């Protein structure tokens, strides 16, 4: 029973990290109708920046995380300016945006590989000492990752549903042209979306790096977040969170009780089964409001 609880907590924690990425996909998709494949690279980039801030410059964890967030925001917003905005202004089909995102992704990941090398690095924080609640031991970093991820999601919710720029983003996700007729600046919305999703992927990269390792191709895990956001319903934020939590818990249980070799197989199986019964995902609406 203790093992079961431990795994649920660990599953929720990794699910919360997936949800940062899944929410990122949902945000970009809800406004621009394309999947930003470059999160993969942003996540690895974020992890590398934090890793070197600690191991080269001996920064405390918090400072390193903050630096990583800022630099990843710069990368994300920069990639929007260079790779997407020119296409968006020319009203290019969304397929072109995806291809552009894939290109940016390949380029950044390979640069990381070239500059830093492909080896696996242990994140230099002490994650080992567990926490005990009764007999249930909980990894300290699991707890931290879960708590911070949920706090960030709450902050994002507050921004989107309780502030004026948030309302502007939601309006843009429904009808970007009419939003601009209300005075919502499309470029400002793009900045907000790419800054927010850059920050989200950096935090996800740092926590994922702590849990597993830091390496250029670590962003491959974003496929899980993609699955989660499709399961939740493309473009739906609550769906992205719910899908991620379910996936995180399911994976951990499969790894714990069946075998970790089958973990990813189950993720895809899960996707297929959900889509059979809910073609739009659990919370996906066909069209209309997505946030």
């Amino acid at each position, binding site marked *: 029973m203790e093992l079961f609880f431990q795994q649920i907590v660990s599953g929720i924690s990794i699910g919360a990290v997936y949800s940062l990425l899944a929410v990122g996909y949902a945000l970009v998709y809800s406004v621009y109708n394309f999947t930003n494949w470059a999160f993969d690279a942003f996540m690895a980039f974020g992890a590398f920046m934090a890793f070197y801030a600690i191991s080269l410059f001996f920064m405390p964890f918090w400072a390193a995380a903050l630096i990583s967030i800022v630099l990843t925001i710069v990368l994300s917003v920069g990639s929007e300016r260079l790779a997407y905005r020119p296409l968006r202004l020319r009203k290019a089909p969304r397929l072109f945006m995806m291809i552009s995102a894939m290109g940016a992704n390949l380029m950044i990941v390979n640069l990381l590989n070239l500059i830093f090398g492909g080896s696996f690095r242990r994140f230099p924080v002490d994650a080992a000492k567990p926490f005990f609640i009764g007999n249930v031991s909980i990894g300290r970093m699991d707890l931290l990752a879960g708590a911070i991820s949920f706090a960030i999601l709450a902050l994002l919710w507050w921004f989107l549903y309780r502030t004026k720029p948030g309302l*502007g983003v939601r309006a843009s996700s429904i009808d970007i042209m009419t939003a601009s007729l*209300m005075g919502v600046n499309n470029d400002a919305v793009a900045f907000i979306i790419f800054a927010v999703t850059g920050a989200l992927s950096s935090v996800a990269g740092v926590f994922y790096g702590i849990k597993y390792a830091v390496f250029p191709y670590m962003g491959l895990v974003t496929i899980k977040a993609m699955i989660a956001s499709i399961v939740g319903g493309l473009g739906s934020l609550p769906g992205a969170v719910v899908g991620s939590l379910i996936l995180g818990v399911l994976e951990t249980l499969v790894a714990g009780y069946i075998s970790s070799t089958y973990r990813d197989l189950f993720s895809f199986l899960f996707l297929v089964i959900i889509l059979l019964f809910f073609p739009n995902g659990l919370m996906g609406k066909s069209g209309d409001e997505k946030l």
Partner: protein
Amino acid sequence: MSANSPLLDVQNLVVHYGGICALNSVNLHVDSGEIVAVIGANGAGKSTLMRTIAAVKTFTSGAVLFNGQPLKKDASRVVRDGITLVPEGRRIFAPLTVRENLMLGAYTRSDRKEQEETLEEIYALFPRLKERLHQRGGTLSGGEQQMLAVARAMMSKPRLLLLDEPSLGLAPIVIDAMFDAIVKLNRELGLTILVVEQNASLALEMCHRAYVLETGTIRMEGRGSDLLQDKRVMESYLGITG
């Protein structure tokens, strides 16, 4: 701005969609305090004109001067300058509440207190909206949606209100109420209005001056009451033969 220069001055405006010319050297102006109508059949270029003035469509050549200044290139900045478009088909944010739709209308404003005053003006004009504040925009009837679209535009406190076919898809009695409200906006609140319409008789009755737009070109202009008596207008736009 000199005392008698128009609020909106459109000069030799040419607009293309790819190779298709939608507006061909259009000249028109709107003075402060006026209601000006542009009438024309389907495809005449009415929406193109409105969308160009609202800067969601770019123009090929010519000039659009607002208050003597060239129009900004970005739609959101044009709103800040005081031009607000009620687009064709209303384009209410269907999943958002009536209140959220109105808040979006006031997106460019930060004067909380004056916004309350604008809201009062809106409730006086469209009491129906006050009862439906927390309802989703998409659940409103067509007439209510048109009210909301106009109210939402009022929330930006525009100096020039652009209306693209406010009568579209509405029952005759609702159209009458809508046009009464538009006239009130002009007479009582002093709002300057440029309206494009297929419903020529109503538009000509309510406006001070009007233009007739045919396949991208202005064919006639004059006072609304004069155009109502014009033989060509009667035949082509009012369905009166004789």
